[in-house]
């Protein structure tokens, strides 16, 4: 890994953290609503995984989904605007925090049903096999999802049919307020792969390079051998399940202990020791990231609200196989468009130059 590549990964992790710290702040200010599930503490997983994906690969995640979109390179402006419920949001204000999609980037979201997207990942893998391409699917979910029936049905058919899907359990130890100990008969979740004969591995999710190593192996297996993998990535969320969760089910000491293994701090030592990055360089990156987040907030706050007409858009696809006269009686059909509305690319982030100091 070159120094530039390493700095890029560092910046991606930091962007997720600073973006979400700001999310928490504006949420408390009442500027964004709904559920807000923060990814802080788990950044190494999304960044490590996304850094290995090809542009034509697909991925899906759970509702704790900000990190995947940011790590994939989706501009923070439409993401923040989505949280603000504006029409410039990545999902035009119809999804919110749990539903970030960016189809040109292969991002199929942001699923709000625990385990509900696992069969979808298998379906995308099936499509890849039918088309005989060498794309792969990454599917992220929490430790809570492994107890859903969908997990078992998806794993079984993925192994049975040879589907190129990497299933990533982000084990942050709690499904909302219920600890893994109280929810799973088997504590080593990766071992559940043995029930389906799926290659499996336990991974330290607080270490970016370890995550990358495990993901690289699994992605390669999917791409070349058309076989699924089940990875259990052990990680930790510093914040509550959502903003309304005070986290009384775990001790302050436990949280502090986990924060000592912080993935960003750990990777900082790699940067300074192996790549001779100076602290001043890291400080400059942080400043740039914070400016980018502020810019995203400004973009969101100055963006228009969706109009009432938009309420009826995006329910259906206008199609020649629907009787036009009947369709015209229904507002959702009237508003239906023939084409998909894919997000427009944003100009890359450039930090505005500091205003020149004027001598008084």
């Amino acid at each position, binding site marked *: 890994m070159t120094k530039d590549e390493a700095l890029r990964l560092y910046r991606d992790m930091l962007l997720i953290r600073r973006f979400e710290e700001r999310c928490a702040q504006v949420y408390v200010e009442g500027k964004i609503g709904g559920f807000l599930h923060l990814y802080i503490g788990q950044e190494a997983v999304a960044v490590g995984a996304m850094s290995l994906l090809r542009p034509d690969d*697909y991925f899906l995640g759970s509702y704790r989904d900000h990190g995947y979109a940011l790590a994939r390179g989706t501009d923070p402006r439409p993401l923040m605007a989505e949280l603000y419920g504006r029409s410039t*949001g*990545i*999902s*035009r*204000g*119809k*999804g919110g925090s749990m*539903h970030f*999609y*960016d*189809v040109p980037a292969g991002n*199929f*979201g*942001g*699923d*709000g*049903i625990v385990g*509900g*997207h*696992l*069969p*979808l*990942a*298998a*379906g*995308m893998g*099936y*499509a*890849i*096999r*039918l088309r005989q391409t060498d794309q792969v699917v990454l599917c992220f979910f929490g430790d809570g999802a492994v107890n859903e*029936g*969908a997990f078992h*049905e*998806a794993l*079984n*058919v993925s192994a*049975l*049919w040879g589907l190129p899907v990497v299933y990533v359990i982000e084990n942050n130890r709690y499904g909302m307020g219920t600890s893994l100990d109280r929810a799973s008969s088997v504590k080593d979740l990766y071992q559940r792969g043995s029930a389906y004969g799926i290659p499996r591995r336990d991974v330290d999710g607080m270490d970016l390079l370890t995550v990358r190593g495990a993901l690289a192996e699994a992605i390669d297996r999917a791409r070349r051998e058309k076989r699924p993998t089940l990875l259990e990535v052990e990680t930790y969320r510093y914040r509550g399940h959502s903003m309304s969760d005070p986290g009384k089910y775990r001790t302050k000491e436990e949280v502090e202990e986990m924060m000592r293994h912080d993935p960003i701090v750990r990777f900082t030592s790699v940067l300074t020791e192996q790549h001779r990055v100076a602290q001043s360089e890291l400080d400059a990156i942080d400043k740039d990231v914070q400016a980018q987040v502020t810019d995203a907030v400004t973009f969101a706050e100055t963006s228009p609200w969706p109009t009432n007409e938009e309420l009826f*858009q*995006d*329910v*259906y*696809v206008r*199609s020649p*196989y*629907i*009787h036009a*006269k*009947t*369709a015209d*009686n*229904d507002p*959702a*059909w009237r508003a239906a*468009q023939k084409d*998909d*509305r*894919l997000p427009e690319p944003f100009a890359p982030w450039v930090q505005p130059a500091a205003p020149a100091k004027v001598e008084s």
Partner: protein
Amino acid sequence: MPVITMRDALNAAMKEEMRRDPSVFLLGEEVAEYQGAYKITQGLFQEFGEWRVRDTPIAEEAIAGVAVGAAFVGMRPIAEMMTFNFSLLALDQIVNHAAKYRYMSGGQIRCPMVMRGPSGAAAQVAAQHSQAFESWFAHIPGLVVVMPSTPKDAKGLLKSAIRDDNPVIFMENEVLYNLKGEVPEEEYTIPLGLGDVKRRGKDVTIVAWSRSTQFALQAAELLAKDGIEAELVDPRTLRPLDEDLIFESVRKTNRCVVVEEGWRYAGFGAEVVDRVQRGCFDDLDAPVVRVTAADVPMPYSKMLEKAFLPQPERVVEAVHQVLYR
């Protein structure tokens, strides 16, 4: 025009569409090597092979979810439910995924899939295997719900459903699989959302779909003996609903009866009645009457099963009621 069964019409629709478009594939329980639990998929596995005609484990959520996921990335899957009773195990994939992703993504995603299979009462298979769930699916924005009643409609509508870019719930009926009818030899499709008048009449409008059209047609024959000419309107698609065709008929007959195989409570017939009373208030000479299944689970005994279903005699009674006879 050749006369074929509903079963063969459905089979021909899938075969023709699979030949026409390589992105169409079929999956479900027993659809391939067994040739279909009801033989709707006969011969498809031999022609198209295991990747396009896929036998699945008994895992309805996976069947539906694989179809939805594949549709999101450009395939046109047909997911067969052995019967719609088992679709309850797949409901999360349909309601929370197939029907929602386009909206939640602000129009980025489409789900061009079909979920099809028999729905409604079969013959003496009791409460868990004899249910009419069209009201459930028709309630969900984002879905299209189709219920054909003749072989010709079945073929033309299924071809449209496969080509359409929305998730289509295509509900067949086991009792109708052997129903024979004329089906054009040449290529044709029938637009979704277009109803059809199955019998012309001037005295009363009967709205019915799927197997209930059979009850209604038998009732119409009985009524004709008394000089009452019933008009049977089959919407064929429940969502979106061709209300124009229903209104046109009611404005002519001034009386309306709605027949359905499902339960009365919150059934789809209530939606039809709501629209008719608002759309045709000044034209109605009597309150609209519904003939439905009894509001109980389906019993096993054939005598009780008969009492449960909307029999032609009950349709006749309802017509007499709206005619004040």
